Every structure is written in C-alpha cells, then in structure tokens.
C-alpha cells in the first residue's frame, strides 16, 4: 500500500455543465400543500437551485485541499482520506467516518480543534491525529464495482488503513453510517480500537415497560419516522439503482433528495438554513453531484441496512443531539452498547452535529476519549 497525495478538483467545464442543467430544470407542478408535509417545497427547491447556479461559491475543493489528502488502495478499492497529523507528539489517532448524505467536508470545522487544541483554546493533551476517509461509493473514494462492500468490510478496510499509517491503537468516531462503521470497527479490531464515540445511536425504541417521558417522546418520534420518514432508506435499501438514475441525471433532483434531510434532521424552527447555511448545504449536494455518487452512495443501504443496530462491545460513548433521527435514553443505549462509558444529551443540534454544533461535538469527542486514550 502506498498512499498517493491527492487534491480535490472540479473543472470549469463541470461547473458550466451543472449550471446549464440547473437552468434547464423542468419543474413539477407546485405541491398542493403549503408546508413540507409532501417533501421539499417547489419554491424552496427553485431558490436553492437558483443559488447553486447563479451565486453559490464553488470553492469547497480549496477549503478541503488545505488539509493533507491521499488515496490508497485498500482491499482492492481506491480509498480517499484526509490525514491530519497533530503537532502534539502524544496525540491519539482517531478515524472519523461520515455518513449519508454527508462527506468529509462535514469535518472542516472540527479538524483544527481536534488536531491542534493548543491553538484552538483547548488542552494539548486532548490532541488527535485525524484520519477521515470517504466511504466506498462516496466522495473521492472509488465506487465498488462488486457487491460486498458493507459496513464490516469497510471497517476492516479502515483497520488496514490505520495500520498502514502506523497507528496500532486508535479510536473511531462517527454519526449516521459513520456510527455503523465505527461500531463495526470495534468488533473487527478489538485489540486496536480503544474506544468508539458515536453521535448517532440507533437502537430500538419502546423497550421498557416503565418508559420515561423522554423515552415516550423518542418512541413517538420513531413511530412518526416509520410512518413518514423512511422512504429514502427503504428505496436506497431495496431499489438503489431505480432511484439513482434520476438523481444522477438531474441536479435539481439530487439537490431536493439531499436538502430535504437538512430540513428533516437538523435543529431549526422551520427552515433548514437556520441550522446549516445554504453554502454548506450546497457544498454537500455538490460533493454528491460532482462525484456522481447518488447511486453508489445509496448502495450502502442495499448492502448493510440490516446492520445499523449491530451490537457494540468496544468501550463506547454516545452523544445524543436533540434533533437527531433517534434519541435513545442511556438504558436503551446500553442494550446495544454493552460497555457504554459516556452518555450525554446535548441541548442543541441534530443529525449533522459536525456541521451544526462543531464546538459541542469536539468537546464530546475529547471528553469520551479522555476515558480510553
């Protein structure tokens, strides 16, 4: 394995083609409701796409290229990753894994504080060497051309990657798919993974006979999610190919498919841009568009959706953000996480913690790993 330095780039031609497609978008009729109950409204989708074509700053590659990036072949697949070494000699290695519809771009605001706390108002003893790979089929990692790249195989690849970088004892962190991969990493490499910190803990709701008010609220949210919110995952888990054609061919379709989740899963009072800026929402959408990964990212659901709640036996920490998809109580979480050493419920934030509440997420990661590093 030889990691090659890598920089993200998009060409003027790619931007011009995107703008051309956006300007030629053929829109459906307006929805017959005046809210988001049928999905992302036409007026907002049009405004978002107008912005994307006309005044969006396509500078995300430059912001990413500030950090050292590489590509290496792991288990036969080209994997893209950020590798940000801390200036602190005793920094602890940490692999950060993003999810859907996210990317390594999510981590731009946490990389500095995690790797160099000394210059970010923190304690140098909390420093990490951070490795943040793009999931197979996502971002600038290769798209698997065979089946089998589920979370366990990805976890094994991450362990191989960390070993190749000289890290024989490390931590794992993630939300969304990153939570599943990080949990699996603890299972496939128990001797090397010191601990697993997650900002999504997907567990069964409604387990206990004497539910607390917050457990009841989480159960109600889970039922509503099952009733109205799981179409995207059901499609991606069963028919990723069928869904992907329209999303790969239509930037408006791709934007709508992703932006709806910034409404559904973030902490706001009605408008997603109150939680995550339009620039950052469009950055995430741009990653999926320019890498044409609508279908390849959806295939991870087809591969592994049944493994989202696999048991985690590694020393683990869970930080629960109030507007995330699911918000288990400590005792509910302990049914899945058998060695739960850190459990905190945060006052603000949602599914995209690194984007919404980067300072809080950094504090949570530092706090948990002080226990196991």
């Amino acid at each position, binding site marked *: 394995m030889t990691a090659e330095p890598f920089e993200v780039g998009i060409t003027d031609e790619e931007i011009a083609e995107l703008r051309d497609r956006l300007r030629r978008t053929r829109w459906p009729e307006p929805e017959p409701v005046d809210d988001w109950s049928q999905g992302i409204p036409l007026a907002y989708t049009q405004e978002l796409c107008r912005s994307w074509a006309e005044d969006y700053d396509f500078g995300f590659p430059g912001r990413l290229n500030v950090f050292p990036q590489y590509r290496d072949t792991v288990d036969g697949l080209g994997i893209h990753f950020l590798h940000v070494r801390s200036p602190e000699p005793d920094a602890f290695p940490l692999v950060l894994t993003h999810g859907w519809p996210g990317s390594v771009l999510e981590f731009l605001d946490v990389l500095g504080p995690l790797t160099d706390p000394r210059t970010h108002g923190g304690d140098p003893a909390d420093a990490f060497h951070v490795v943040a790979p793009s999931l197979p089929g996502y971002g600038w990692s290769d798209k698997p051309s065979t089946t089998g790249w589920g979370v366990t195989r990805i976890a094994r690849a991450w362990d191989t990657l960390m070993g190749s970088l000289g890290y024989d004892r490390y931590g794992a962190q993630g939300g969304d798919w990153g939570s599943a991969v990080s949990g699996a990493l603890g299972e496939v490499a128990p001797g090397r993974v010191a601990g697993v910190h997650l900002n999504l803990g997907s567990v069964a709701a409604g387990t206990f006979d004497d539910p607390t008010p917050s457990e009841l609220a989480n159960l109600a949210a889970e039922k509503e999610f099952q009733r109205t919110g799981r179409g995207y995952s059901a499609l991606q888990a069963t028919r990723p*190919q069928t869904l992907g054609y329209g999303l790969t061919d239509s930037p408006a379709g791709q934007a709508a498919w992703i932006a709806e989740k910034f409404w559904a899963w973030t902490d706001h009072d009605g408008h997603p841009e109150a939680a995550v800026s339009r620039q950052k929402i469009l950055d995430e959408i741009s990653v999926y568009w320019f890498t044409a990964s609508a279908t390849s990212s959806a295939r991870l659901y087809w591969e592994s959706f049944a493994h989202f709640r696999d048991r985690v036996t590694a020393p683990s920490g869970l930080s629960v953000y109030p507007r995330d998809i699911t918000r288990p109580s400590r005792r509910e979480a302990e049914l899945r996480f058998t060695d739960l050493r850190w459990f905190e419920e945060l006052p603000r934030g949602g599914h995209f913690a690194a984007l919404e509440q980067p300072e809080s997420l950094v504090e949570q990661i530092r706090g948990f790993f002080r226990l196991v590093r």
Partner: protein
Amino acid sequence: MSVLTVSDAELGELRNRLAGTRWPAPWPVPGWSAGTDPGELRRLVAHWASGYDWRAHEAAINALPHHFADIAGTPVHYLRFDGEAPDALPIVLINGWPSSFLELTAFARRLATPSEHGGSAADSFTVIVPSLPGFAFSPQRPSLTDPLPTHELWHRLMHEELGFSRYAAHGGDLGAGITSRLAEAHPEALAGIHLLAVAGPVSYDDESLTPAERAHLDAVADWSAKEGAYQHQQSTRPVTLAYGLADSPAGLLAWMLEKYRAWSDCGGDVSSRFSDDFLLTQASLYWFTNTISSSFQPYYEYGENLTRRVERVEVPTAVALFPADLAQPPRSWAERTYHVTRYTTMPRGGHFAAWEEPGLLADDVTAFFRDLR
C-alpha cells in the same frame, strides 16, 4: 380532437435530455435485484432518443375518442367507446399507477364491440375510461380537501354528465380502491363491480384467519418489505422524489419500467409482455404532460387518511386474480368486505391485465355482467 400536440422544440428538448443522460457507475448485481437494469434502460433510452417515432404515437393518441367534462368545477378527461348494441351496459374502467388510459384501450374496444372479437353484440358495453385527477389530461385536484373524491367524480360523470342511471365499474391497482368506494357509496347505481385487487377488511379478529388468509397477509407483508419502498416514498414525500423524475426522462423511464417488469407476467423479460413502443409511449405521455408528481397524489391522500376506507360493498362483486399480480387474496378474504359472486383465478397475466391479457379480462367481465344487465 387533438389532445396533445408536442412542439418540435419540446420533442427536441426531450431527445437532447435523453442523449445527454448522465449515467451512474455500473455495479453488476444480478438481474434487477437492486432495481432497474442499466443495460435494458440504456437500450430503451437510446431508442427513445432516436429510433422511436413519437409523432406516430401522438397521432394514434389523438385519434382516440377523447372527451372532457367539468364535474362541479373539476375538469376531467375521458375516453368514450360506444357499445355496438343499443342497450349496451355502460361501464367505467378506472386506471391505476403507473398506468393510463393507453393501457385500457384494447380491453375497452373488446368490451364495446365484442362481435369484432369473436363475441356477441348482445354483450356489448359502452365504455368510459376517465383519467384520474393528475393523470395524463385530467388536471391535478386543486386542493387536498376537495369535497369530491375521485369515486364521486366518476359517479357524477357516469350518472349526471352522461346520464347512465345504472352502470358497471372495473378497476385494478388504485382503480380497484376507487371502484370499491364507488360501489359502497352508490349501490343503487352499480350493476356490479369487477376488481383485480381488493380492499382488506377495516378490522378483523386474528383468530378468525384461515391458513390461506394468513399466508396471503404474510405474502403482502413480505412484498411490502421487499417491494414497497416506492409506495412509502410516494405516500409520504412524493414531491421530493418528483424533482428528479420531472427533470430526467431516463429517471422517469427507470421508475416506470421497474414496475412494468416486476408486476407483469413476463418471466423477467419485460419485452415479452410490452413492446418498446408501448413502454416509451406510456413514458412519453407522463413526460409530455409532466404528471409524474401529480400521479403520486393518490398515494399521499391514502397515506394521510384523506381517502375513505372501504367498509362494506354490497353490490355483486367479481374478483379476477392474475397470477403475476402483486397479491392473490383468497376468496374468503375478499368476502370479508365484498359480496363476492364471482372469483376467477386466471392462467396467465399480471398487474397490467388489460394490456397483457385483454381477451381473458374481457371474457371474465363479459361473463360476470351477463347476468347483471
């Protein structure tokens, strides 16, 4: 009457979009197990972009016996095929999704002029084929709280607009539900109904299930888990899905093609049941009328309980089950809701029976209504 005149510019625009389709990376899963097969889709898209003669099909569509009516302020489109006998029984054929009147024309002609198909003129029907609101040439319902649900629209169309005091009705898919509600609401007007699918009972005692009913419910649950994602998405976030399909003809065709293959008696080869021209004309009709988004509305209305649940249908009911259709409810299950007087299991055919097996379907409808005229 020309109902559809696509300009050269619109036709050129469609072809440009098809030729410029941006495709997902290949991923060799066997057959269609993760959704629409890229090889088959690419073949059809290439044909749609160049070889396919839209103008010939446009002329054929325009040559159909189109009519429009205003039903209490709601504009509706329908075809009318007059029966060859003066005392022909009026029948309304109610379409489903992703279908349209196109699929029902061969069946309608057999019912209207049986003597041209080896039958007797005495068995003829005057056939009305309306387009559901939001499908093809019937505009979308202006609001979700429209006081006239679709079955009431069709009753007023048949009873008041067309002056049929007593008539028959047939439907599959969404049309089966509408037909059932029509019969429940207007038993005095319906000679009988002929269904390809049945509404389950509003409630039932689990203890009372026969082994066959239990097997049916298990099969439905299994189908829903493996095949039902489209339904969940269309019921809950139809608008989010629609952007990509309204903007990408390849995406639209992929979405529809999957269903024509999965639900027909084609043994996995969609071409064995549907010609390329049929599939592309159906997709063109959805494309040029830009109705994929509005065609999802009945799913949303049902999911949100805006559609009346069928409780009890007392008019004579025939159920015809085609072996490749989505469900095979036992007679006893249908009898929990309907006054079943005919129950036919067909030797071949599937969900699109009117197109797949117009002769078998017409013979069954004819035999059923012979005693009800």
